[in-house]
């Protein structure tokens, strides 16, 4: 057995590190910056990461609050909502008896905005925007992104997208209300519903800004990963976080432009009278001029983005979880190469399964078979990952920090939600399940909750790197257990609703006696949702409180991690390392090797030491 390795970090980086003459030239903007260039129009990837995170948190609160309002409608359809009048104004219709009801149009607007906001603004920008920005340069040993300028624009386009969407909430006709997937004809005919006019126009404008943001960010992430790795950081030595962000960026780059094409045709239908998506159609008893279009065409274009998009959301979470599990189990990640190959396989397969969202739209059943097969094949790399996470935990010296708890919770959620995916992936079973609460349960567990858990694991774990302080652990644990139990309480019952055929996106069920016995279950779900929402507020309080008053970080590497971000000074400035950039000599998972607790990536291989893979 090899002897325990000893090393002096500062000395090693100084002697072995790579001198890029960074501190010799002064570009002006980078070092001596005022408040505005430092905190607002910053080009430092670490600040941009925080901007993405805090903007994402703002949107998460709005999106979640919306869901509470529509859950109140579903759980307590008879209760008066007059008390919401001060916030929602004319969308609460108060009758003579003083009973306020939520306007049905606005219910649909809330459902739509909830989906759009959470999927795009929170789990895409807030998750991959935050952690790709924070971790890519830090973990591969780069001073910043390939183009800090484009990176800044990426954030500001996201901000602009959010601004437009936010303003659309205050339109007198309300924001768009045809579902986050924006299917025509509701999205194509301004007269189709109250949100289909100005609301939909602003939705499109906002989404286009958003795509620009994703593309600018993605181009930057890919270029940075491929070109700016420090000496010795081969692709096969990259932490799984970086692999995940890298493949996520490629997916975004190839799928979001397809959405733009889809929206371009939609815009032409809306404003210039083309008939891409519209066919012989009547609105209010009046025949319109459109002939020969096909709404299914839009669904193809949308889901060609839409399915990769769900992996754009989950892959970064998977990367963060892999890292957190390994660090806090004090064990190398099990099957590193298999993890990388499954990320690649998932990325590839995600482009050829989109029509599983369209089994019931009248596509040829023989074509459906093709999509059934590829959809079910995705379960294979997913299962490989789950197996490896569990095996990483097995026999580990586990530290149950908040970050670790959320990472384990992620694995649980991903399994539960992935299993229901396999049901839905069979086109025959989908005949019963499509557009019911079963689908709602499936994707909220596997994507919504799981991705949020990945994000929480990331926040608790890298908070010290971002702010030089720790978040409160007790509150973190309360946050975890409450959310874990609460989330299952919300979504588990929905499977039963769905199997019984309760359709999603309905304002009320009182005209169907078949579903009346679910009233109590709906109440239960709503109450659980309110509790979970309260716990997220607690998290936000913990977050902001800890920025200023959290326990201070005293050592650079509090978790004993091997990756390079923990070699930068606490509260590192722009450029990340004060002196040389560390060079890399090993993979990121040398935990418990040859009697060492952990060996960081910058430590050279010892004599007779074999490199692990």
């Amino acid at each position: 057995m090899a002897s325990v390795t000893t090393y002096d970090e500062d000395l090693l980086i100084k002697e072995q590190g790579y001198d890029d003459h960074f501190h010799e030239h002064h570009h002006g903007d980078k070092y001596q910056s005022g408040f505005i260039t430092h905190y607002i129009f910053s080009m430092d990837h670490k600040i941009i990461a925080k901007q993405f995170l805090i903007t994402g948190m703002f949107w998460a609160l709005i999106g979640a609050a919306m869901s509470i309002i529509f859950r109140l409608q579903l759980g307590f359809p008879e209760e008066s909502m007059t008390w919401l009048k001060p916030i929602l104004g004319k969308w609460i219709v108060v009758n003579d008896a003083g009973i306020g009801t939520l306007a049905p149009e606005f219910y649909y607007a809330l459902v739509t905005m909830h989906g759009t906001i959470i999927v795009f603004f929170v789990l895409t920008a807030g998750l991959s925007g935050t952690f790709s920005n924070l971790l890519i340069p830090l973990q591969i040993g780069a001073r910043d992104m390939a183009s800090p300028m484009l990176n800044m624009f990426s954030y500001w386009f996201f901000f602009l997208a959010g601004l437009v969407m936010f303003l659309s909430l205050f339109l007198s006709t309300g924001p768009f209300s045809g579902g986050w997937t924006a299917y025509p004809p509701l999205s194509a005919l301004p007269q189709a519903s109250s949100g289909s006019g100005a609301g939909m126009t602003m939705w499109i404008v906002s989404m286009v800004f958003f795509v620009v943001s994703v593309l600018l960010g993605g181009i930057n992430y890919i270029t940075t990963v491929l070109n700016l790795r420090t000496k010795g950081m081969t692709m096969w030595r990259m932490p799984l976080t970086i692999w995940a962000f890298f493949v996520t960026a490629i997916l975004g780059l190839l799928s979001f432009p397809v959405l733009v094409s889809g929206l371009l045709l939609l815009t032409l239908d809306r404003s210039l009278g083309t008939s891409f998506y519209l066919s012989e159609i009547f609105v209010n008893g009046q025949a319109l001029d459109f002939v020969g279009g096909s709404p299914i065409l839009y669904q193809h274009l949308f889901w060609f983005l839409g399915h990769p998009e769900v992996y754009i959301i989950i892959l970064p979470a998977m990367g963060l979880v892999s890292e957190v599990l390994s660090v806090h189990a004090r064990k190398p990640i099990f099957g590193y190469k298999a993890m990388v190959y499954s990320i690649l396989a998932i990325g590839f397969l995600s482009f050829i399964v989109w029509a599983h969202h369209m089994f019931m739209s009248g596509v040829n059943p023989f074509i459906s078979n093709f999509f059934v097969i590829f959809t079910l094949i995705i379960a294979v790399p997913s299962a490989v990952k789950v197996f490896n996470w569990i095996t990483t935990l097995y026999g580990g010296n586990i530290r149950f920090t908040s970050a670790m708890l959320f990472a384990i919770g992620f694995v649980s959620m991903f399994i539960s939600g992935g299993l229901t995916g396999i049901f839905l992936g069979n086109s025959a079973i989908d005949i019963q399940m499509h557009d019911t609460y079963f689908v709602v349960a499936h994707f909220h567990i596997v994507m919504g909750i799981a991705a949020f858990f990945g994000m929480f694991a990331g926040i608790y774990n890298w908070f010290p790197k971002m702010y030089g302080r720790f978040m409160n652990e007790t509150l973190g644990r309360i946050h975890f257990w409450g959310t874990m139990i609460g989330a299952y309480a919300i979504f588990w019952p929905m499977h039963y609703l769905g199997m019984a055929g309760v359709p999603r996106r309905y304002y009320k069920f009182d005209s169907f006696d078949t579903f009346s016995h679910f009233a109590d279950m709906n109440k239960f779900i709503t109450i659980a949702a309110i509790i979970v929402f309260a716990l997220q507020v607690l998290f936000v309080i913990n977050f902001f409180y800890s920025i200023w008053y959290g326990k201070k970080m005293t050592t650079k590497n509090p978790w004993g991690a091997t990756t390079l971000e923990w070699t930068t000074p606490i509260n590192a400035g722009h450029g990340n390392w004060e002196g040389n950039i560390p060079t890399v000599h090993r993979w990121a998972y040398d935990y418990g090797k040859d009697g060492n607790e952990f060996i960081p990536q910058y430590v050279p291989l010892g004599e007779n030491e074999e490199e692990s893979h």
Partner: protein
Amino acid sequence: MNVAVTEPKYRNKIHPKKFALWAGIASILMMFTALMSAYVVRQAQGNWLEFRIPDIFLYSTGVILLSSLTLHLSYRAFMNGKARAYRTNLILTFVLGIAFVVTQYQGWLHLQSIGIELTGNPSGSFLYVLSGLHAAHVLGGIGALTVALVHAFKLTYKVTAIRKLRLELTMLYWHFVDILWIYLIVFLILQQ
């Protein structure tokens, strides 16, 4: 395993900016591929008006091909110290670029004269959208050429790394919109 592992190279040969442009090109390509797949899918559903692609679009193909050639010559001249040829060919490229857009516009006018409007049967709408979106990307290229012209005429001629890179980036993008058009026109002719 050997202890003295050879340290791998840590930087790729290709310049990051050029790489970023390639990545951008990939995403533009996806945008067009989406529209072309939509075209094929929609065509397969029937109720599809057939008409001949106007010849004007073949002339414009010649124009844009020529512009790629002149831009290439300009770059060669720039590298070989021939300042005059560099500038003239750059102007030529710019003029040909404008000529391309004008020719496309003529093509649209011609389509209207034979009764193919933007609205109406999607087979016509698709042609307008594909060529229109492409023209928008050419306009972007003309913007880049304008910047290149300003550099060529305002700065004293000198080959520096940064100016070489700039010219190469412009050239890469311009060749791309050229090849993209050829791809589109071949697709349109084969698929009509």
